[in-house]
């Protein structure tokens, strides 16, 4: 056989990416999984004691900090889901009321350009109990208002949710606007001819038509929530207590404070598991969408 460069050249060009995938992703994931079975502390210790190889996981499931982190993950997920709702409301309003569309879009989207560290710094300042929003409200005479969310374990998470909604609503709005624009304009006319009320139009026609957009948003949101670290660090650094720990924070803490590589790896593997749980529907969704498109 003669050498055919048209067959070989692309494979050569793919080698770097392949190497990166194999080493930095697949190899590293396997490495971390392996480490999670060891008792590695600061440095890797590759001996596995097979009589208690699940030791790190056992500890994880008994660790109050980990269960707090998991609950917070759910809280954060549900709370941030408001960003999708909010995003949809904004998108629907902007889409119906054309006036000022460019202006509103610009305003709602700019927080997305801001890093989560900056977002955290800004909101932490606003929520500062002695000089921030609360102090101002008290000065204005609304002494009953309690905005010292960051100070209490049961409200600190809400502050993080508030900041993340502020940061990400615009993004979901942009996705929703795109979704709304792809809806055939004749549907609006048809609904108007039929005399359907706007509410029913949205609830019975538009939202079901956009279920794919909603699903996309939900999956993106979940993946974002799993990765949430910066915002927690900048807003509360995990506190008060462990009340705002999330898995992403837990892993870093285990690595740096506890200096327990094995434990951090076990927590990271659990994070990967959660990611896969979210990822699986995405794969199914993509397959489903492809089939639907093929059928169309």
């Amino acid at each position, binding site marked *: 056989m003669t050498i055919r460069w048209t067959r070989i050249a692309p494979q050569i060009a793919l080698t770097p990416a392949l190497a990166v995938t194999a080493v930095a992703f697949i190899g590293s994931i396997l490495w971390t999984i392996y480490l999670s079975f060891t008792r590695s502390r600061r440095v890797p210790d590759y001996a596995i004691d097979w009589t208690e190889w699940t030791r790190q996981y056992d500890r994880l499931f008994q660790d109050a900090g980990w269960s707090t982190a998991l609950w917070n993950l759910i809280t954060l997920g549900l709370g941030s889901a408001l960003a999708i709702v909010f995003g949809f409301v904004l998108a629907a309003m902007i889409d119906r009321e054309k006036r000022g569309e460019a202006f509103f879009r610009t305003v709602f989207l700019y927080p997305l350009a801001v890093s989560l560290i900056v977002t955290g710094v800004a909101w932490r300042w606003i929520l500062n109990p002695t000089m921030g929003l609360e102090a101002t409200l008290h000065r204005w005479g609304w002494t009953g208002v309690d905005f010292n969310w960051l100070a209490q374990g049961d409200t600190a998470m809400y502050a993080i949710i508030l900041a993340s909604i502020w940061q990400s609503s615009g993004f979901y709005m942009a996705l929703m606007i795109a979704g709304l624009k792809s809806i055939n304009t004749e549907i609006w006319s048809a609904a108007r001819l039929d005399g359907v009320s706007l509410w029913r139009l949205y609830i019975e026609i538009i939202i079901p038509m956009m279920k794919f957009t909603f699903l996309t948003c939900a999956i993106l949101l979940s993946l974002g929530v799993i990765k949430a670290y910066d915002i927690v660090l900048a807003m509360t650094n995990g506190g008060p207590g462990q009340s705002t720990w999330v898995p992403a924070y837990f892993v870093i803490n285990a690595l740096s404070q506890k200096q327990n590589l094995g434990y951090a790896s076990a*927590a990271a593997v659990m994070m990967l598991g959660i990611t896969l749980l979210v990822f699986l529907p995405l794969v199914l969704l993509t397959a489903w969408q492809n089939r639907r498109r093929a059928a169309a």
Partner: protein
Amino acid sequence: MTDLSVTEAAAGATVVRRHPRVRRRRGLNGRSIAVLVFLTMCALFFCVPLYVVLTTSLKTMEEIRQGQIFALPETWTLEAWSFAWNEACSGITCEGLKVGFWNSVRILVPSLILSISLAMVTGYALALWEVKWAGTFLFLLFLCAFVPLQIIMFPLIAITRTMGVYGTIMGVAVVHSVMAMPVLTLIFRNFYKDIPREIMNAAIMDSGSFWKIFAHIILPMSGNILIVVLILQITNVWNDYLVGVTFGGFNTQPMTVNLANMVTVSTGTATYNVDMAAALLTAIPPLVIYFLVGKFFVAGITAGAIKG
């Protein structure tokens, strides 16, 4: 909770399509007014942090202590800005945020070159050339695109350590490139996939050289997607904290890390005006990009999220 690396997501960077829709100028009826009022209130909510941060940064500390967070500064001063930029301390070096700014720039440039060139060539090879295992590889990339950094953090530390780049600008840039590779590749691949097969065939018959076709035919057609990916990657890298703090070393940490250090460990009294000025300084580059090329920015961050 959408950090940008998520929003790139799935694949395909089709620039958001705008269906030209007939604009109907209607009179201001009750509903319109209600909607506009609601939108305006939301807009105010969105602007409050920016306003507060901006005014705080222009105030003196005495004024800030009065707790009038919403008041305009009585005496406008740029002192906090100049202090944050030139003098604020991060560690023993008190040279201000400008150190971090230049670090961020020095991280940004190689990471952009590395990640985009790698992703472009990979996407091009996968989309336009016949490679038997392309499908499997694509699926792998799709999976990798969602892997949080924590899961591969220690191995990456060990790898960069072995490469001798841990704790250097290059190290941070390399990790950024690695983390961005799957998503950017998918974006490029989905863009190139839509290039007509026959153009590729014509080029293959004309030249047959993988690189020549890339340089002469494909690269000139990649203008739009390049802008989109550039914006995506610039915002990503600039706004990153975790990679910078984990892989940065001797005063090679990016601006966000400097900012976080400055805010958490400031000298003496907490100087909120300096903190806020520093926060704004950190936020300015991506904000400028957003306000200058908003349309591409939106396309960039939603790249792939909307398929079809």
